[in-house]
């Protein structure tokens, strides 16, 4: 349950029995052949796996260094890697006999993935989302509602992701007997970090197999963006024990570390704490109060990070860097124009660093970047930044013609 000193199970007594039940069931089903077959079959037919491993030939040539590959998680159903975990946990919850799934969501991707899976598996679904996020992320809220999910507007605290987590935990303390709390990142009390990694490790497994069919022995570098870190830990999973593969996590540099408007826990100024059930690094003040964070990408905009990543950084297995909002937007432009792929802003952080790295490496090296999601979801951010007049005029027209 611990990675070095990180991880653990820091929960109220009222949740102890549910967490114990979950632990026991997770470790049992993780070994269960039938469960794994059912999971894999749904990954194939419902999620659309395997997602491609794609050679970004144009970027490689323009940069003129290492070969750059993308793992295109954004082609999964609901547009991101999140569904790997949502599907796995929901299936597990169904096996245990739970009737209802609750989940927190910030930007909405985890909520959308979870709502989709619940529709598929005939589970009730309630999503906790900060009031501020609900207002900002209406397209995702709409999709969740279409999937039949009930949205709880969280009006406590800062009314964003961390408060949605708190509220989901509180709700869980009341209903854990028939309800599974489906955490969306590799964090929270054990067994969540282990469980989320388990379900996201499909990404790394596919990479390994796909590299084999490209006749590449192994990656030289693997790069993933890190908010909570579920895409990163799943993507890295197969290679953590192979030290010849360099692993790099890219955090949200926001407006720069010195500005304190960022979400970089490891490469920035996070410190060790125990929050929301787990011990890890958090952006917090000297008293231990959690700070508000900033990132252009809603999916990275969170004060905590998965405990295993912190540990793997501490033992120097994963290196962490960060990329700033403005660099990310530049990279977004560059990638869409040259590859015909729209990366999520989250994933664009990883690409942004990969491009810098590639230019300093020999052509016989290869870099694999996890494109954790597709960027169409970000249009209300990117269009506003890159095409403001047309976009605002379009929205005005929509309002005028239908208001």
């Amino acid at each position, binding site marked *: 349950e611990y990675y070095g000193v990180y991880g653990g*199970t820091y929960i109220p007594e009222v*949740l102890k*029995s549910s967490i114990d039940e979950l632990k026991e069931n997770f470790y049992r089903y993780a070994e269960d052949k039938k469960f794994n077959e059912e999971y894999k079959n749904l990954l194939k037919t419902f999620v659309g796996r395997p997602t491609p491993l794609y050679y970004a030939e144009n970027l490689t040539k323009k940069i003129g260094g290492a070969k750059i590959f993308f793992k295109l998680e954004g082609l999964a159903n609901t547009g991101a890697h999140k569904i790997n975990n949502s599907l796995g946990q929901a299936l597990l919850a169904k096996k245990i006999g739970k009737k209802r799934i609750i989940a927190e969501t910030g930007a909405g991707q985890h909520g959308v993935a979870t709502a989709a899976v619940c529709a598929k598996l005939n589970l009730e679904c309630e999503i906790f989302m900060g009031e501020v996020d609900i207002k900002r992320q209406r397209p995702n809220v709409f999709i969740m509602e279409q999937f039949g999910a009930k949205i709880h507007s969280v009006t*406590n*605290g800062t009314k964003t992701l961390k*408060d949605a987590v*708190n509220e989901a935990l509180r709700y869980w303390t*009341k209903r854990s007997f028939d309800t599974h709390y489906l955490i969306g990142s590799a964090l929270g009390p054990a067994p969540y970090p282990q469980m989320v990694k388990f379900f996201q490790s499909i990404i790394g497994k596919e990479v390994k197999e796909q590299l084999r069919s490209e006749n590449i022995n192994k990656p030289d570098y693997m790069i993933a963006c890190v908010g909570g870190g579920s895409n990163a830990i799943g993507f890295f999973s197969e290679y953590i024990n192979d030290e010849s593969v360099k692993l790099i996590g890219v955090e949200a540099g926001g407006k720069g570390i010195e500005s304190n408007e960022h979400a970089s826990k490891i490469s920035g100024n996070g410190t060790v*704490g125990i929050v929301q059930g787990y011990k890890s690094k958090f952006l917090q003040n000297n008293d*231990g109060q959690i700070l508000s964070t900033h990132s252009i990408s809603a999916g990275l905009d969170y004060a905590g990070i998965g405990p295993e990543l912190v540990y793997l950084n501490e033992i120097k297995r994963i290196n962490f860097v960060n990329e700033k909002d403005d660099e990310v937007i530049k990279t977004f432009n560059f990638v869409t124009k040259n590859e015909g792929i729209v990366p999520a802003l989250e994933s664009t952080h990883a690409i942004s660093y990969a491009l810098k790295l590639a230019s300093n490496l020999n052509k016989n090296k290869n870099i694999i970047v996890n494109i954790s999601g597709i960027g169409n979801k970000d249009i209300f951010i990117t269009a506003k930044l890159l095409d403001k007049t047309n976009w605002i005029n379009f929205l005005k027209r929509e309002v005028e013609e239908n208001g």
Partner: protein
Amino acid sequence: MDKKFLMTHLVCGYPNLKKTKDIIEAMNDGGAKYIEVQIPFSDPIADGPLIEDASKDAINNQITVKKCLDFISSLDEKLRKKIIIVTYANIIFKYGIENFVSKLSKLKLYGILIPDLLPEYDEGLSNFCNKYKIHNILIISKNTNLNRIKYLNKKGNGFFYVTARNGITGEKTIFNLETLNWLKKIKDIIIKPIALGFGINSKDQILKIKEFTDIVVVGSHFIKIINENKNCKKIYEVIRKETEKLVNFL
């Protein structure tokens, strides 16, 4: 039947430290046996909206851990001995758990209650509490099975805080026969006194439960009254009268 006691609750620095002083003295003067002083934390997962909002207000008003402890050290020793510090793991972890417990010890406080530190994962809290003679209040919830209650019984060195239902602070609890039977079973196992809490605010409730517990906890109810009277100059009187009233039901 033994004498029963009242434990009250307040958030340190809410609505401000001056009023906190009025409130804590009122509770003391009103006859509370124990007073939970909650050091605010930004993400209190075991608390309902009343305590969370009070915590948020206090933090926004620049309350810090140091200010809380300085405030407590300014109180009379007799009052301090009634105090149980309630806060979350991160606050004491950041401070240094041993330092924190030793500080409470120096201040001669009664105890500490950290809802998100179970004995199995308590970062040494119970050891430090034993070392520095501070009562470590453990929680027993409605989900806690009998085996685990026996285990907790061995781990705690103060009274036990029994939450009378699932969920979080501040919501009304209904005491039905099943709950009362459950309380009896707990009393059979737990040697130390128990404090029964979560959603208690009425005479009816108190009369119904007092035979099953040693201490009755009234928490969010006080936060609500404080909230309603936060701009009232006579907050001391209001709180003292409410405390006296509740004590008289016991």
